[in-house]
Each structure stands twice: as structure tokens, then as C-alpha cells.
């Protein structure tokens, strides 16, 4: 610690803290125009100059990058400094067009604020007009370099945080400006961080131009509903319409957003949004009022239940429901529909959590928070293209790589943006064989005796069994099966084992169904044997696909779970919950999503209540799913859009979007965060309102809550790790579970002090499966294209603008071998007879022998290719 005096205030700060940060801690504001906490200090605006007296000498220096030292006396507001700042501002105004009245940034312009604060008058020199590039072509983002003050924040955030390096300074001196190469329109992640960080109006979000000034907006902080990172969104609304999206700096995501969070929201206004309930009358879906629709649904479900019993009913929830909705849906399915049959995510997306994390470690959740990745020395990503799926988490890897020379090790069947980073390793594997690499690394580490014995002895059991099960996973065998060189595997293992801090990242999603539990087990084993569990910037991250992927598991949307990780067969828990829910719980384990559909086809399941899920589009084996769904006696779909599943339904109930409802999501960091409604939409109801209304109609009026806050109170009473959580405590940053009482600040790092079950239980490795050499020549790799996620993004006019349709991405060698050019139409056929016609596209991320097809464009019907038992598909590609 160093102690210094700033404007007479004594402050002690950590060594390495800048004078600016120290001043902030002392509550003293120093003006800046080029500083942002997320960025490496740059020192270009020269507004933060302060007078520093040390060892009897007084010098003027910028506060933003000079470190605070012991005994310094800092003056921030002398007359000399203020007049220097005034001069600096005048110089900035020399060539800055004074079109403030018509500028969109007026009122949200740091230059304007400072000019006002320092009472800058007319400058004693001539102004100068310079003409720079104006880019109106790019998606979402408008560049008007005439307004630029060359603070470089856009360039830096694009490089240092996003890792995109789309923008840079060109030319020199007076003529320097920010540009892409040769001034072409942007072709980047479109995260809009450049616009968000711009202190003036030089870079702005196009759609927010001309729609309102900052001070006219009603701002609401809520949580993003796309992926599971739980970024805080500030929605600015004028005349009941969202016209502004940003994220506060104080948020857990530090104000960083991706294209989905910042520009994806127009799906809220999509024309395809359902606004009225529909019921099937005379064979077709017709709009009716809510009362009619709800009684139709209640009656329909009752009818099946009365005729065939509760077990002939089933419920499919979604990881997009809030915690409160998921919890109440669980109660509704188990006590009103009276069936144990409840699932979500195809029964697969969350399996690594319940099948590996929970059994081995204790909690079915990732061990560390995403923010810690930035301090990891090695980041091992298994089948995780987080640039596309979780862009804001990717930023942490970029920060680690850029500032700490951290090495990303990518084990995947396609190239990702992280494989291009300095020091990265890319282990290219056939789809579904990531676990082989993980186990081979594990065996190598054990063989080389790089195991953390102390941690193992104290904290884990089952090591000997694990070692025995790894016998086949020699580096050579893994190299043979996966085609990765033995050298690369040992390099990766060595790097992981020897790093001071090493983290593993896994992602989930229905597009990665193969051996995900095996992979998660191997990854957790790796972390355990090297002593990386319960340690900061280490551990295993599991990035769920949807906003409440974690909460859906916490709330027990699973055939064998009740809320709070209680098992359906745990008598004590059953008793407690039955009492709380005022109804007996159905006996036995429920059916999984896959089983439900099989039973529907066989006629054993007759009624299905689908909430926020689209099985026909996202589950494997499209034909069977369709057959199952059409065999149902009664199908209810609750969604924002008329999905393909909804089109088969007997009743369709439109629901509120994230911007229109209240509740909480639990992020992948286990952070419970608020959804606060920014908009009113009286035409639709929230899922919660629908569940309680139906319960009342179905004879269970005790299932009722005066709003989501009451639900959370009940959850806190039942779910131990949520015990300390109340809406009042959540604030802007939320609370991380486990949070066990009202004083508990929550724990970002799990298992620091030990495991809930005493010790972790290492899972033995599965037998090494050889790949069958037969079949068609190419792997079909379902992937994300340009940040889509499917269900919502396909209705987002903005995201569709960037990427309107899917294409088949292929390696140039494959294209050449097939005599194809970029843009040629190809037919892709699989062994089971599925085929699609799509345009071929040259792509850097496709490796030889694979064709990448986006799974989120319903038109491509990719799930005609996949099957439950055969998630990895080989195909043939031919020119049309």
C-alpha cells in the first residue's frame, strides 16, 4: 500500500494504482476524455494533468497513467491546471463542428459537459474545418469522423477488449482519423462498443439517431435475455418505445455488451410477435380473447388428466423462463397437471451440469465467475466457440491474452477467433471427441506426476479408479482417434498443468449433444487433479446457452429434480415441498423430453404443455418430433412467436418479452439478477400470470402469487443456496449463490473451503470409443453464424440485417476439390436420407473435411439430419 495526499485528502491505495484511480477512491474527480476503466491508459487528451510534489519537486503530469507513490502530494484543481484544461478544451473545439443543437450526442457528450463545466469561452484562435470520412453504410453503427476528438477509445476497446481490431488510426497529426482498412464499411462483431465508449457523437448507434436525447429517456436497468452471461442492460425508452440500449459501467459485465444485447432487442417489436391467444377451432388456429383461451387450455388439460391420468400429461419448460416462472411451472406441472414428466432443453443442454458437475463436485454449476478468466494464464476451451455464443465472455479471454499473455488452448472441430491469438494452440478434433483429448491430457499429467497431490488427498476421492480407467487414453491413442498430433496434445497438457492459473471453458447447447457429459467429467477431473478447483481464475466454466440455463436447473426443470437440486426420489424433500405446495407430489421419476416424445408417438403421453421451447426446430430427429407432436391429443404452446411447434398446437398463448416482465435470471456465474419491465404490453401476459390463472381454473387456487417477488420469497425458503436472496438485496449487480442468509454477500468462487459432500468424487473415464471410419466423407458441424441464437434472433430485424440466411461454410481446399466457388449452391445429403440445398461459402473457420451449417435458421431444418442417438452426422456435399 502507498499513502499519498490528494487535494489535502490522505488516501492509501494499492501499489500500482494510478493517481487517477487513487483520486477516485478519495472521492475526487479528475476530468478525462480518453480514460475508461476497461482500457489500458493511453494519455492522449491531457486533461487529467495534475501537479505532483514529491521529494521537494513539483511537476505536472497526467494522472491517468502515472502511478501513485508514497508521500506524493497531488493538487488537481489549481488555477494553472484549470486554465491549462480550458486551453486543452479550446484546442479540441478548434476543429470540432459546433453543431451541438442537432447532434445526437448532445446531453450525452463528455466534451460538451466539460466545456460547460470549465466555462470555456470563445477561443483566441481561428476555428478550422476539416473533412473526414462519414460512414453511413455499416450495420447499426454510424461513423462521423468530423466529430472525433481522437481519444482512441473506440480503437482501444475494439482491440483490447473485443479482440476484433476492426478500427485503427490512419494518417498522421491533424489528418489522423479512425478508420477501417481503406475505409470500407464495418465487417466485425457489431458489438457497438465503439459507439458506446465514444465520448462525443463521432460514433453512434444508427437506430438511436434522431430518436431522443438522454435526458428525455426513461431508463430501466434489466438483464439481457440472450445468452447465460447475464449482462446488465439499460433500456432507454421514449414514448413507450425502446430507443437506447447500453450497459452501466458498474455492472458485472463492466458495461460490455455484444451485438445481441445491444442491437438484438428489436425482436420485441417484431411483426411476428403474437399479440392475441389462439385456439384451434375447426382445424385452424383462431384468435380469441384471453378468458376463452385460458379456459380452453384448462379444460383441455383437465380433460386429458381426467381421462388418462396425470402421467399422460407432460410439460416442457425452457431455460428462457425466469427463476420465478420456472419454479411456478415446476409446481404447476407437478401439482396441477399432477405429472412427474417435466423437462427442458431437450433434456440434454443441461446434462453436463446434472450429470457431471453435480455428482463430482456437489453443485450442478460452474465453479468460478467469468470475470476471473482475465487473470488466467491458460484458458482451455473445449468445443467452445465463445466468440459466437458468448461474446462478452470471449472478451475476458482477449483481455487475458492481450495483457497477461495468457494462452488460449482451443479444442474444437472448427477454427475460432481465439485460435488466431498470439500464443494459442488449436487442437482440431472430429466433432464429439473433445473428451478424448481431455482424458489424454489428464493421463499425461498423471503420468508425468504433475498432479497436485496435496489437494487431491485432502479434497477428492476416486483417484485410483480414475487412473485405472485412463489406461487406454495414451497420447498416442488419442492422437490416432482424433488426428491431433501427439506433440500438440502434450504441449496442451503441459501448458495447462504448469500454468499458475488455468481455467477450462465448456459451453452447452443443443448443437453440441455428443459426449458432453463425458467431456464435462474429464474437464472437472483435470481441474481437480491439478488442484484448480476452489481457486481464483481457475476452475471449470460451463456457459449455458440461454439466459436462465442455470436457473432452470436450480428450479428443477428436469424429470428427476425438484427445485433446489432436490431429487424426486428424496422422501424428506418431497414431504417438505408437498407441504409447501399444498398438494401431494406425483410418484416416481418423470419422463425426459426425448421419452415424452417417444411416448407421445406411442399414445401414452396425450397432452403436452410447451413453454418457451420449440422442439420441432431444435430437437434432433425432426420427422419423429413432428410425428410425436401431431399424435398428441392436446398441445399447448406458450411463446412470443408463432413457432413451427406452435403451428401444430391446439392452443397458443402469447407471452411477455424480457423487456415487459419482472423476475430474475441466474447467470452462468450463478448470479441472480433482476429483470425489470421497461415496457408495458397489455395484450400479452407473463408466463407467471398464465400459470396462476390456469391453476385457479384447474381447481388449484392455492397456487397463486402476488407477483414474482413473492415467488422469490418462497424459493429462498426452499432452496438453500438462494436463502439470502430477496429482491431488495439484488440491486444492480445481483447476488451470487450460494447466498445462505440475509447477510451473505454470496460466493463467486465455489469450493474454496471444501465440498458440500466433504470430498469431490472423481468420475472414472468412459471407455475410449474408436471412430468408425465408414460413412460419408464430411462432418456436418452445426454452428452459430454471426451471433444468432435462433428462436429470438431470427425475429430480430437487426441481426437478420447482418446475416439474413444460412450458408454452408467450407474450407477452400474442399471447395476446390469439389470444383466449387464461393456462392455456388450445393446439396448436402446425409446417410439417413436428409438433404438440403444451400449456398456454399468459403470460410476460414471450416477445417478440411467439414461443412459448417448454422442450426438457428429454421428454413434450413438442420434437425432433419440429426438424431438423438447419432448426434454426429457425416454428409456428402455435391454441386447442384
Amino acid at each position: 500500500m502507498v499513502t499519498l495526499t490528494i487535494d489535502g485528502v490522505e488516501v492509501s491505495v494499492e501499489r500500482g494504482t494510478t493517481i487517477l484511480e487513487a483520486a477516485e477512491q478519495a472521492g475526487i474527480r479528475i476530468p478525462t476524455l480518453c480514460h475508461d476503466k476497461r482500457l489500458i491508459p493511453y494519455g492522449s487528451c491531457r486533461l487529467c494533468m495534475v501537479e505532483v510534489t514529491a521529494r521537494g519537486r513539483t511537476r505536472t503530469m497526467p494522472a491517468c497513467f502515472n502511478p501513485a507513490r508514497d508521500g506524493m502530494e497531488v493538487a488537481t484543481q489549481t488555477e494553472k491546471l484549470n486554465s491549462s484544461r480550458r486551453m486543452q478544451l479550446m484546442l479540441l473545439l478548434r476543429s470540432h463542428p459546433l453543431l451541438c443543437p442537432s447532434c445526437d450526442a448532445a446531453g450525452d457528450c463528455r466534451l460538451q459537459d466539460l466545456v460547460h463545466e470549465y466555462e470555456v469561452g470563445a477561443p483566441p484562435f481561428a476555428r478550422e474545418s476539416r473533412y473526414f470520412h462519414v460512414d453511413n453504410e455499416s450495420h447499426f453503427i454510424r461513423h462521423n469522423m468530423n466529430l472525433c476528438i481522437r481519444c482512441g477509445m473506440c480503437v482501444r476497446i475494439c482491440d483490447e477488449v473485443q479482440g476484433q481490431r476492426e478500427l485503427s488510426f490512419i494518417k498522421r497529426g491533424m489528418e489522423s482519423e479512425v478508420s477501417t482498412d481503406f475505409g470500407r464499411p464495418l465487417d466485425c462483431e457489431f458489438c457497438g462498443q465503439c459507439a458506446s465508449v465514444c465520448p462525443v457523437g463521432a460514433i453512434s448507434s444508427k437506430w438511436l439517431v434522431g430518436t431522443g436525447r438522454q435526458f428525455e429517456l426513461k431508463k430501466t436497468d434489466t438483464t439481457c435475455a440472450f445468452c447465460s452471461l447475464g449482462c446488465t442492460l439499460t433500456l432507454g425508452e421514449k414514448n413507450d418505445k425502446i430507443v437506447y440500449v447500453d450497459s452501466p459501467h458498474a455492472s458485472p459485465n463492466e458495461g460490455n455488451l455484444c451485438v445481441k444485447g445491444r442491437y438484438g432487442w428489436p425482436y420485441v417489436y417484431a411483426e411476428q410477435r403474437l399479440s392475441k391467444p389462439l385456439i384451434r377451432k375447426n382445424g385452424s388456429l383462431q384468435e380469441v380473447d384471453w378468458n376463452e383461451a385460458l379456459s380452453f387450455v384448462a379444460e383441455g388439460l383437465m380433460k386429458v388428466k381426467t381421462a388418462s391420468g396425470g402421467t399422460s400429461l407432460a410439460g416442457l419448460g425452457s431455460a428462457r423462463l425466469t427463476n420465478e416462472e420456472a419454479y411456478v411451472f415446476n409446481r404447476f406441472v407437478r401439482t396441477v397437471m399432477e405429472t412427474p414428466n417435466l423437462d427442458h432443453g431437450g433434456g440434454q443442454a443441461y446434462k453436463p451440469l446434472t450429470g457431471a458437475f453435480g455428482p463430482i463436485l456437489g453443485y450442478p454449476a460452474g465453479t468460478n465467475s467469468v470475470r476471473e478468466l482475465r487473470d488466467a494464464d491458460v484458458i482451455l476451451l473445449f468445443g467452445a466457440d465463445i466468440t459466437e455464443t458468448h461474446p462478452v465472455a470471449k472478451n475476458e479471454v482477449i483481455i487475458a491474452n492481450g495483457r497477461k499473455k495468457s494462452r488460449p488452448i482451443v479444442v474444437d472441430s472448427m477454427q475460432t477467433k481465439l485460435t488466431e491469438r498470439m500464443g494459442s494452440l488449436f487442437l482440431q478434433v472430429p466433432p464429439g471427441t473433445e473428451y478424448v483429448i481431455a482424458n489424454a491430457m489428464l493421463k499425461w499429467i498423471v503420468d508425468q506426476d504433475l498432479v497436485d497431490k496435496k489437494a487431491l488427498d485432502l479434497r477428492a476421492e476416486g483417484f485410483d479408479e480414475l487412473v485405472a480407467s485412463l489406461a487406454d487414453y495414451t497420447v498416442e491413442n488419442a492422437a490416432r482417434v482424433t488426428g491431433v498430433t501427439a506433440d500438440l496434445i502434450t504441449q496442451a497438457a503441459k501448458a495447462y498443468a504448469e500454468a499458475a492459473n488455468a481455467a477450462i471453458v465448456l459451453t452447452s447447447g443443443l448443437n453440441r449433444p455428443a459426449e458432453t457429459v463425458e467431456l464435462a467429467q474429464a474437464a472437472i477431473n483435470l481441474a481437480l487433479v491439478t488442484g484448480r478447483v476452489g481457486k481464483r481464475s481457475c476452475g471449470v466454466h460451463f456457459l449455458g446457452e440461454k439466459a436462465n440455463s442455470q436457473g432452470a436447473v436450480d428450479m428443477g426443470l428436469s424429470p428427476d429434480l425438484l427445485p433446489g437440486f432436490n431429487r424426486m426420489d428424496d422422501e424428506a424433500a418431497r414431504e417438505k415441498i408437498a407441504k409447501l405446495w399444498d398438494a401431494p407430489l406425483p410418484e416416481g421419476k418423470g419422463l425426459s423430453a426425448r421419452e415424452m416424445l417417444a411416448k407421445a408417438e406411442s399414445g401414452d403421453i396425450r397432452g403436452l404443455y410447451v413453454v418457451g421451447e420449440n422442439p420441432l426446430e431444435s430437437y434432433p430427429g425432426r420427422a419423429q418430433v413432428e410425428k410425436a407432436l401431431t399424435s398428441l391429443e392436446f398441445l399447448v404452446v406458450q411463446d412470443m412467436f408463432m413457432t413451427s411447434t406452435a403451428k401444430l398446437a391446439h392452443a397458443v398463448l402469447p407471452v411477455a418479452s424480457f423487456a415487459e416482465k419482472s423476475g430474475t435470471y441466474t447467470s452462468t456465474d450463478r448470479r441472480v439478477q433482476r429483470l425489470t419491465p421497461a415496457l408495458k404490453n397489455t395484450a400479452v401476459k407473463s408466463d407467471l400470470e398464465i400459470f396462476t390463472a390456469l391453476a385457479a381454473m384447474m381447481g388449484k387456487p392455492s397456487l397463486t402469487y402476488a407477483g414474482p417477488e413473492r415467488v422469490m420469497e418462497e424459493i429462498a425458503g426452499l432452496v438453500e443456496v438462494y436463502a439470502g436472496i430477496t429482491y431488495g438485496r439484488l440491486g444492480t449487480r445481483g447476488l451470487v449463490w450460494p447466498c445462505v442468509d440475509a447477510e451473505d454477500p454470496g460466493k463467486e468462487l465455489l469450493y474454496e473451503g471444501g465440498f458440500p459432500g466433504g470430498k469431490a468424487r472423481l468420475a472414472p473415464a468412459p471407455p475410449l470409443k474408436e471412430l468408425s471410419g465408414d460413412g460419408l466423407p464430411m462432418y456436418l458441424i452445426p454452428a452459430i453464424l454471426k451471433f444468432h441464437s435462433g428462436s429470438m434472433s431470427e425475429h430480430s430485424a437487426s441481426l437478420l440485417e447482418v446475416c439474413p440466411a444460412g450458408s454452408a461454410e467450407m474450407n477452400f481446399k474442399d471447395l476446390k476439390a469439389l470444383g466449387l466457388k464461393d456462392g455456388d449452391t450445393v446439396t448436402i445429403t446425409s446417410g439417413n436420407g436428409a438433404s438440403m440445398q444451400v449456398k456454399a461459402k468459403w470460410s476460414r473457420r471450416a477445417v478440411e473435411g467439414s461443412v459448417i451449417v448454422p442450426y438457428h435458421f429454421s428454413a434450413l431444418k438442420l434437425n432433419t439430419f440429426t438424431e438423438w442417438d447419432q448426434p454426429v452426422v457425416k454428409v456428402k456435399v455435391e454441386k447442384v
Partner: protein
Amino acid sequence: MCASPSYRMHFMMCAGTGCLASGSADVRAALEKELAKRNLQDEVQIIMTGCNGFCAMGPLVVVYPDGVFYNQVKPEHAPLIVEEHVLKGRVVEKLLFKEPVAKSAVPLMKDIGFFGLQRLTVLRNRGLIDAENIDEYIARDGYAALGKALLEMTPEEVIEEVKKSGLRGRGGGGFPTGLKWEECARYDNFPKYTICNGDEGDPGAFMDRSVMEGDPHSVLEGMAISGYAIGAHQGYIYVRAEYPLAIQRLEKAMVDAREYGLLGEDILGSGFDFDLAIAPGAGAFVCGESTALMFSIEGKRGMPRIKPPRSAEAGLWNQPTNLNNVETFANINPIILNGGDWFASIGTEGSKGTKVFALTGAVNNVGLVEVPMGTSLKSLIFDIGGGIPKKRKFKAAQIGGPSGGCIPNGMEDVEIDYESLQGVGAMMGSGGVVVMDDATCMVDTARFFTDFSVEESCGKCTPCREGLKAMLDKLTDIVEGRGEEGDVEYLQELGHHINSTSHCGLGKSAANPVLSTIRYFRNEYDAHIRDKHCPALVCPELIDFVVIEEKCKKCGLCYKNCPSDAIIWEKKQVARIDLSKCTKCRTCITNCRFGAIR
């Protein structure tokens, strides 16, 4: 020298960029032809050396063993030299140098004031060796210092010796070299790098070019020693791409040194590995700033970055890096060989050793000179430089390029060392000295240097990017007659603001030309602003273009030279200027010998 003993005479011909430009290659060809014709090719050897320094007088031929100095030699003089000097043993009078003041011919090089008063350390091999021949460098104690350092000294001892010498960075900053090495040596983070800054960009400066072209091995040797001292095994020489000859000679030198085992692995069997690569610059003045230079080597945009961390801790590719200027490295060999104490005995209290200056502008002996620190400016200009041509008066000298300041007439007794120069508002800079006579307008000069800085500002920080342009605008206003009362005070305020708030050395010193000309030539600014008159008759907008009748000698030179027929003159009549035809080209003013036009 490795010349065959059968040669009885050597022609040392300058092959620096200056002499090559004035035709020394043609002279060489003519001499060779002439010698061959008379079958003297085995008796007389022609050696192309590095820059001799006396660039204004090129092409130069120095004949040894006598040491006779011929200047401005042309190919047609070849028969004369061979006939007279080689065969008959007579000095060719007409090609001898004539002292500008005394007008007497001086046959021997050592008697010429320009050479006689210099003390050569950095330029020790000037005019004596073939720059492309490593053997000749070695014959003059080349690489002896490297051998001594590697085989007889520890890295700590090398640093100690450099510290003892008191050598300070010759790139302008004047930071003690030994301390710099010591700091870099302290970091335990490998690899480390040592970099030679050869991005010489000041207008009129060519010291580093001359060393790189004329004695490339001295740079290589200094760098290898620095690598040994700090623990670096790789060095980079960052050279302006505008110096193709320097790059070519450095490359040749590196190839030769590798062949001799003086670069590469296990140098001289010491176990020390060191190699070098050349990084050509991309034409930006700011890349002479150390951090911008490192970015440039990394292939990034050359822009200064913040410090801390200093380069010694995290420089090139974020690794500990030492960076010195060409001239600094060239000083290392003599320091190691002769000892730090020897070096410290030359120069003044705070500035040790010698300094090379590029003497240009209104001075008779334009060229490259090396003098001990502490030599007076007067001696530099009048004794070595031979004074001001055309009987004009010395007005000021701009030292330190666009970052420096001017030293006016009356202060020429100032001693040239780091502290004294700073005391009078100039700076050592890299060593450019532009001498100005009384026909120079100081406001225009300040404007010229400011224009240069505006062009070369990288654009990163506000004061340099915007402030310099504001300053330039104001100076332009003043020289074009739009100056107003208060402008000078405004320029001073802005100048201090730019100097005190800019980020890097470029901006921090960019206002010096303006501030120092205001300090010493305030009256000229006032004349421009109040009288709308340029006293030096340089700024066209501020000249009346009227003939002063009393001064006019009616010679008609103005009339004869005017390109636009604007002069009305008849024999024995005072000339008049027809302003409707005058284009303000100033031809009449420069041709009038009597100062009769105002």
C-alpha cells in the same frame, strides 16, 4: 591497413551520400582510367571511404602519404592530378582548399581549420577506411573493444566503465548511457533486446547517416557490447528507409561480421550469442521517439505510448529493451578500449566526450564536425565553419533541429554542452546546427520549424495535434500581415501549454523554435505585427518593394534579373518598381548588393 605494400600512394575518396551526389563515383572512374592509361594501377590505390565531413566541398580526394587535400574534384581533373601529383610530385594548386577568410590555399588536410580543430572519437575512422571492408575496420582497433569486453570483462564491469565515462545519450535526451544499461540489465525477463535508433529525421542533420555509412562496424560493435552488458542476444537497427546506402552498408557489415564470428553464436569463443537485424523505418519523424520506434518495429502504428513501464522494463514486444542512438553506440569502442576515465577527461563537468554536429545553413564550411563538449558556438561557426559567407552577419544558430531553439548573435560564446544549451533555451538534440545570417527572418524560421512539427505530429495528444496547428495558423497570419497586438503573448501561452502538456519529446519541445525566437527576436515579431514590415525582407507580404533612392547605386542588377519586367530603370537612373507587375518574388532583393530595396 591491409593494402598491398607495393602501393606507394593512396587516394582516399569520399563515398558518403553527399560526395556521391556531387559525382565522386565518376571521379573515381576517371582516376582509375587515367592511372591505368599510365600503368600506375599497381602503384596507386583508390579507396572509397565513408563521409569525410566536408560535404560542401565534395567530391573530395585526400592523397596519402602526403595528406594533400583536394576538393571539388571533377572527372576532367583526373589527368591533371595523375600527371602533376603522381608523376611529377607537384601539388595541384587549383584543387586545393582555400580558407574562406584568408583566401589562401591550404595544401595539407591537417592544416585546414575545418579539420584541424576537430577531435575525432565517433568519427575516428573518417576518411581513413573503406566502409565496406571489415579488415580495414579491424586494422584500426575495430572489434578489439568487443573482444576485451567479452573475454576480459564481466557485463557489470562493462556497465561500470560506461558509467564512469559519463557518456550521455546522443539522441537528444542526454540520459546517462551507463545508467540506462544498468537498469535494463537488472530485469530478469528474457529475451531482452538492444536497439539502435538510426531514425535521424531533423531537417539538416546527418550525423548518424554518416556514421552508419562510413563506419558501420562501429555501430555493430557498440551494439554487441551493449547486448553483452544487458543480457540481450538480439539487436535491431532501426534505420530510416530514406537512407538506402546506410542500410546497404550495415547489411554488408553484418554479413562480414557474421563470417568473422563477430556476430552470431559464440562470438570469439566467449559463449556469448548476439545477432542483429535491420528494421527499415516507414518515414515518420515521430518514430525516432523510442516507444513509437518499438511499435514500428513490431509492425504497429508508430505512436508513443505511456510510461511507465519504461522500455528498460517492457519495451519491444513487452520485453526489457535498451535503446541508444547511433552516435552513442559509436562511442562505446573507444570507451572500452581507453577506459571510462579517458573519455571523462574530455568535455565539461556534466557533458563528457565529443559531439558530432551537422553544420549547415549560412556558413562557409558546411559539413560534419566533431568537437569536444564545451567548445564554444563561436569556435564552431567561425573557426571550424569558416564564418558566414557573402560578408553577411551572423544572426542566430538553431541547435537541436525542430525541437531546439535558436541562439542569437551576442550569445555565441555559449559552450556547447547539455546544460548550457538548455540554459539559453535551445537543446543539444541530435546535433543539427543551422546557422542563419542577417538575411533570415526569425518569424519565418519559427514558422518553418513549426510547419515541420505539424506535419510530423502523430496526432495522438491534443496539445501537439491541435496546439501546433493553432500556432502555425497564427504564425502564418503574422508573416502574411494579419498579425494583431497580443499575438505574441498568445503564442507564448500556447507554446508553454504545448511544451508542458504534450505526451512525448516531439510535442514537449515543438514550441521551442517559437518560444526562443520570441525570447531573442521579439522586435522582429513586433515589426511584423505593428509595422507590417519584415526587417529581413523575407516575408513577401510584408515588403514594400520600394527602392530606397539614397541607397540605390543605379547599377540595374535588379532590372536585369527581374523575371516579370516590373523594374523601371535606365542607365544612371534610380530604379523604380512597378507594383502592378511585381510578383513579390524577391529576386530584386536578393540581387541588390546595396540593400536598396525595402
